Structure formats: structure tokens, C-alpha cells
């Protein structure tokens, strides 16, 4: 009996602190969801299987949290030991009872006097007993997990309307909180920052765009690097063994007019491998040199250990906005494979090092250039997932092309710096799909077609399921092996712009998907 008590006490004491060791092994806590991606590798796979291919047809709404404020929810909530922590837009965050959806506390960020900033937010990071989030005016803040009370508040970049902003969920690594800046359409110069989790003091900054005198600075024309974009607007991934953080970097600016920034424009549209201790660059791989179509490389850099041509290798894979699926060696950055997955008419092929060989007439022009994929890409920031049982990579495919226009544009601080616009192609219907790929070959294993191009990510479980959502409001479950649609629910909103997640409390499994301004949670009866 005493032993049992001791065990119970240990079990109760353990959850108080989400220490780095727990984060390193987040997949071993399938009842919880401890990082934006669910773990550091971003596989978005869970061993939970109470909800499975046999019974998912009975899945029903357990609770709905209507936030009332904060706009469209783009968050992926964290769940730690029965408590859900969710950010909303406009600096709002809540803690909820994960079983009932009832609010435990609510936080509203107090904007500095004169600051009028609003905007979406994608989620929290947790470390110890602290939560970390960014704000629409580019601050990083730490909150007490138990109360939502502000602990520290650090400015990443001075606020000025129409310049920098921040949306991403931070990544907590060891004793630091790693974040990135948004503003790739606003003429900013991007960066990835790390802050000391205890004090909020900045530990390091990695500028995503090197200046003239710096390594890589010669890939920019004249002084164009100073307004070169390269935002770091999505959360990176982390390999504790290699002590490396992987971060997808966004587009160069101005987006569509490449004439003022001749050169490859490093490190825009690249994956960078950083040392989390000091922010130093280990390697980089540029997917789209000198991009002129807003094809950010912000898509999830998923870490997989797989037998590559018979030999186990540490890989990083990314379905890129430029419509190619890439496999790289994550120790060296070596290009291993790149295969197109959606309609594309910009690259003839990739060369042996993964550099695209361009087709003619792909540049935006004053008269408009018809090109696939469109500005929003063959896929985008919605999360993919990987199931070790089916060995398939599940992701959202967007089939949509655009007419790209370009005009020289004078940079004016606080105004958009696009270098013209893109427009959908008249009379050409967009569509999309949920796709299962073999990540070792790029071959399609199955494809479920949607009526419109989606904006929602995927989740896969040991229940033999893949969850995702389309652009018409359906949250759906699919057989992970065959792609058969097994369940659907009309959420009543076309704003399904984040990814589903799952957790369990007291042995009961839940599925959560933010939809419109609400957070909807499902369970079996």
C-alpha cells in the first residue's frame, strides 16, 4: 500500500514541470501534446488508438469553446496532464479543462500605448511551469502555466504598423525559447531569435538574410538584402542527438519583382540547420534560389530516421510550397531526392544537387505570367504527418495556379513590398487533396480529392487513422492504409486553417480541431 501511495505521489508530482527530458521524449506521452508539432520531430503521430478505423464513425462533438474574440483560430493547443493551453489571435490565450472545455484562466496581452496591432497566433511552447507565446506587435512573453500571469515580456523588434509582426508558436529547447519574425511582404530583414526562458534576455539572433560583408551577402544585388525579407514565420523542429534546430525560411522581398535583387538571395526559401546554443549556421539548403513567386520554405521540416537505399539515415523531409517533395540528410544538408507532387510548370527538373533547372518564361511580368503552382503553393504551412506503421507521409495538396504580375516598386516603410500582385486564373478551378506519399520514393500511395484547395494539416494515429480537413468545413477521418473516408463532420466554417491534434484524459481519447473562431473537441460516446 505504501509503495502504491509512493507511486501515486510520484505520478502526481511529475507533471508539474515539463522539463527538457519530457520534451525530448514527447512521443512517449501520447496522452499529452507538449509542443506545437506534438513533439520535436513533427511526425504528428500518436500511439492512441481508442478512436480507431473500426469505431471512428461514432465520433461526436464533446464540447465547443467559442472564443468570442481573437478572430480565426490558427492555434494548435498544447495539452499537459488534462489542461489545454491555447492561444487565440490579438494577444489572447486561455487554459481550458481538456475534458469539458471550461475555462480555467484567460490572458489578454496589454499592448503598449499607441500600438494598434491585431493578428493570428499559432500556439504556445511550454517549458518547466511556463508558457511562451509571441504577440502581434513582435514581443515574446512568458506566462505562468497555473495562472496565466505574465512573467516577462521582451520586444523582438520595434513595432511600426506594416513592418514586423509575429504569429508562430515558439520552440522551447533546453533553457531557451526559439522564435522567428514575420513580415516577408513588408520589406523586413528576417531573423530567428533565442531568448533565455528564465529571464527573457535575448541569447542569440540568426539573421536569415546576410548583408554585403557577410557570408552569402554576395547573393544579393546592391543593398537589396537590407529589405530582403526571409521571414521565419513557422516553428522549426529539433534533433536533441544532433543538437540541431531546423528552420524553414520564407520568401525574398519584394516578392514578385526579382529585378532589384539579382542573385540567389540566401537564405530565403531555404532550410537552415542551426546550433540551438549559439544560433550558428551548420548548413543550409535552398529549395528555390531567387524565388519570385512567394514560395516560402516555411513548411514543416519533418525529421525521420529511415533506411535510405538500404542504410539507416537521419533525414529531414519537406513538402515544399514550390510543389516538390524533398528528402535531405539532416546531418549534412546533402540533397537526396526531390519529386514534384502537384502541377508545376516552372522547373524542368532538379539537378544532382537539388537546384531547379528553370523552364523559360516563368518570371512574373507586367502583362502577367500564368504559372503553377500559384502564390499559395502546392502545399503550405499546414502540418503533414508520418505514420511508422503504414510508412506513409500524409499532407495537404493544393492544385491552383496564378497569373503573376511584376512591376518595380519603391520601398516605403510601413507599406506592403510585393512588387505587384498575383491573381487566380479565370475559369480555372482550384482543387486539392489529402495525399499519402512514400517518403523514400515520392510515390503516391493514395489520394483523396477535395473540391477546393485545403488549408488544414494532418494527424495520424495508431488507430489506423489520418485526420484532416478541407476548405468547405469538413473535418474528416480516413483509413491510413487505403485513404477511405470513414467519418466527416461539417464544422460550418470555411476557416479550417490549422491542424487537428489528439490527447487523452483519464483513459478517454479526444480529437481537437480549431474551426473558425472556435475550438471543437470530439470523443466517442
Amino acid at each position, binding site marked *: 500500500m505504501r509503495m502504491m501511495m509512493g507511486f501515486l505521489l510520484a505520478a502526481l508530482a511529475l507533471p508539474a514541470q515539463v522539463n527538457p527530458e519530457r520534451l525530448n521524449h514527447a512521443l512517449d506521452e501520447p496522452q499529452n501534446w507538449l509542443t506545437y508539432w506534438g513533439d520535436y520531430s513533427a511526425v504528428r503521430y500518436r500511439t492512441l488508438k481508442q478512436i480507431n478505423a473500426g469505431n471512428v464513425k461514432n465520433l461526436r462533438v464533446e464540447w465547443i469553446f467559442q472564443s468570442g474574440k481573437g478572430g480565426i483560430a490558427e492555434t494548435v493547443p498544447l495539452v499537459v496532464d488534462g489542461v489545454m493551453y491555447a492561444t487565440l489571435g490579438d494577444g489572447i490565450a486561455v487554459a481550458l479543462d481538456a475534458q469539458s472545455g471550461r475555462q480555467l484562466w484567460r490572458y489578454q496581452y496589454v499592448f503598449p500605448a499607441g500600438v494598434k496591432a491585431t493578428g493570428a497566433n499559432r500556439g504556445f511552447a511550454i517549458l518547466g511551469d511556463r508558457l511562451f507565446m509571441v504577440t502581434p506587435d513582435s514581443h515574446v512573453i512568458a506566462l505562468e502555466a497555473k495562472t496565466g500571469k505574465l512573467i516577462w515580456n521582451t520586444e523582438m523588434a520595434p513595432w511600426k504598423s506594416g513592418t514586423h509582426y509575429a504569429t508562430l508558436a515558439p520552440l522551447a529547447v533546453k533553457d531557451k525559447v526559439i522564435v522567428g519574425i514575420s513580415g516577408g511582404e513588408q520589406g523586413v530583414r528576417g531573423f530567428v531569435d533565442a531568448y533565455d526562458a528564465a529571464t527573457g534576455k535575448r541569447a542569440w539572433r540568426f539573421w536569415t538574410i546576410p548583408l554585403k560583408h557577410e557570408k552569402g551577402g554576395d547573393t544579393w544585388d546592391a543593398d537589396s538584402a537590407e529589405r530582403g525579407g526571409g521571414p521565419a514565420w513557422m516553428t522549426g523542429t529539433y534533433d536533441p542527438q544532433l543538437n540541431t534546430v531546423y528552420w524553414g525560411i520564407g520568401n525574398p522581398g519584394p516578392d514578385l519583382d526579382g529585378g532589384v535583387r539579382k542573385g540567389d538571395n540566401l537564405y530565403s526559401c531555404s532550410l537552415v540547420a542551426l546550433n540551438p546554443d549559439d544560433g550558428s549556421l551548420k548548413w543550409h539548403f535552398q529549395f528555390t534560389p531567387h524565388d519570385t513567386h512567394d514560395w516560402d520554405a516555411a513548411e514543416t521540416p519533418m525529421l525521420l530516421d529511415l533506411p535510405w537505399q538500404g542504410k539507416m539515415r537521419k533525414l529531414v523531409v519537406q513538402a515544399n510550397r514550390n510543389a516538390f517533395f524533398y528528402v535531405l540528410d539532416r546531418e549534412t544538408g546533402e540533397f537526396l531526392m526531390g519529386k514534384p507532387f502537384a502541377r508545376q510548370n516552372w522547373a524542368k527538373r532538379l539537378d544532382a544537387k537539388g537546384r531547379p533547372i528553370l523552364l523559360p518564361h516563368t518570371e512574373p511580368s*507586367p502583362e*502577367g505570367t500564368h504559372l503553377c503552382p500559384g502564390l499559395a503553393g502546392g502545399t503550405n504551412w499546414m502540418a503533414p504527418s508520418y505514420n511508422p506503421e503504414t510508412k506513409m507521409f500524409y499532407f495537404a495538396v493544393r492544385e491552383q495556379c496564378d497569373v503573376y504580375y511584376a512591376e518595380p516598386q519603391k520601398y516605403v516603410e510601413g507599406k506592403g513590398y510585393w512588387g505587384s*500582385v498575383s491573381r487566380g486564373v479565370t475559369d480555372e478551378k482550384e482543387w486539392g487533396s489529402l495525399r499519402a506519399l512514400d517518403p523514400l520514393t515520392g510515390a503516391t500511395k493514395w489520394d483523396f480529392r477535395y473540391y477546393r484547395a485545403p488549408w488544414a494539416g494532418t494527424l495520424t494515429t495508431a488507430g489506423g487513422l489520418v485526420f484532416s480537413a*478541407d476548405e468547405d468545413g469538413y473535418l474528416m477521418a480516413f483509413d491510413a492504409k487505403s485513404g477511405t473516408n470513414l467519418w466527416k463532420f461539417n464544422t460550418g466554417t470555411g476557416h479550417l486553417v490549422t491542424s487537428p491534434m489528439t490527447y487523452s484524459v483519464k483513459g478517454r481519447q479526444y480529437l481537437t480541431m480549431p474551426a473558425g473562431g472556435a475550438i471543437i473537441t470530439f470523443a466517442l460516446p
Partner: protein
Amino acid sequence: MKPLLFLLFLTATSMPAQPVAASAEGKALFRSNCAFCHGLTGLGGRGPSLASAHVGALPDSEIQSIIKNGIPGTTMPSFEGFDAAELGQLIGFLRALGSGPVTAHPGGDAAHGAAVYQASGCAGCHRIGNSGSIYGPELTRIGSARSWAYLKESLAAPSADISPDYEGVAVTLKSGKKVTGLRLNEDTFTLQLRLPDGSFLMLPKSDAAEVRHLDKSIMPAYTTLPERSLNDLLAYLGTLRGTATGAAVDKAAGVH
């Protein structure tokens, strides 16, 4: 009253105002924001030609208001992002359009055109005011909304440009029954159509053996109309301008 207005309109177009030079900035703004509907040169497409005295006669404040707020009840959306300088450049471009030579069209006898409209069965699908069918696009203000050239093309080759709101769908139900209608809404799993009698057909796609999106317009091509009748019909359509000012909104009646 209507023929008189139309005459005034024609007279005005034939007397171009002083030519105005458009700036490169205005042209660039127009191409990237307006050309999608109004054509690269502003002579019309899915949206009306802007190279008309009708547009040219509007004061700057009115054009600014249309750009900023759109035109309720039409497909003209609001463009809120322009600052004062950009609005000025855009308006400069529009004024330059109206000051250049306007492609003349032959005109016609609108009264006879109205008879051609009735005789050709147009009212079987289209509505003007409160008379006619709700199946096809309403024509109450089509003379304001589309250029003469666009309407001519729509009569001769209706499939050349099909508005997204009027796409035809042919469904073969699992029972074997075939229906064709206009798509009101569609998603991954369901379909809602308007049938030619004006009623709704709402079905899960699992009820259908085949759902085929027609790449042709549901409207027949009027290729056998004599040239004169066609011109008269176009002249008649040109007179259909909603209200006397061409506005789509009957504010007095509270109708949009």
C-alpha cells in the same frame, strides 16, 4: 425616356474630352488590380469597359468611392488598400482611357431589339426587373455591367466566358435519371443545383453515378440571328441600366 438617355449616352461617347496622359504607376496599379475583370486595356471583359464617357463623367470623389467601397449588388468588389496617391494614379489612368478613341459600334434600333428579345425566348431564362425567369443571369442592368463587345460575344459564343455563378453541372443519379442545372454550391461531399424550373436540387454526391462539370455554357449560341436583329438586340440590352443612373441599388425601395 429610355431611348433618349441612350441617345445622350451615345452622343457623349462620340465627343471625347481632352486627352489625358496616364502615368506608369497608374497603369501598373490598373493591370495588377483591375485588369482581371476590366481587361488589360480597360476595354472590358467580365467587367464593363471603363473607356466610356459614362465613367469619364463621374467626379473623382465618386470614382474613389466606387474603388474603395465596390458597388453593392454587383461583382465589383471593394479595394480598400489604396492610399490617396495611388487612387489619384488609378483615376488618372481611367481618365486617360476615356479620353482616347473609343471603338465605335454600329448602334441599332432598341425598340426592335426588345421585340427580338421576346421573339428569341430570352425571357425563358433571363429576368429583367420582375419579369422573366430566374434561371439565368439577371439582365436588369446589363447595359451598365457589360460592354457592347462582351454582350455580342456572349450572344454568339456564350461559352467564351462563363461567370462562376452560372456554371452548368450534369448529374446522372444512381437511379439512372439525368438532370442538368446551375451550380449554387458544391463541396467535397454534396451538391446544390438550381434546375431550369427555378427549383433546388440538393444531393449528397454519393447519390450520383456521375457529376460532370460542363465546360460549355448552358445558354445556346444565337448564331442564326440576322446581323441587324443582333445589333438591335444589343442596342436594347445597352438600354438596360437598372435605374436611370445605372446604379444597381434601388435605395428608395430598400432593394439591393
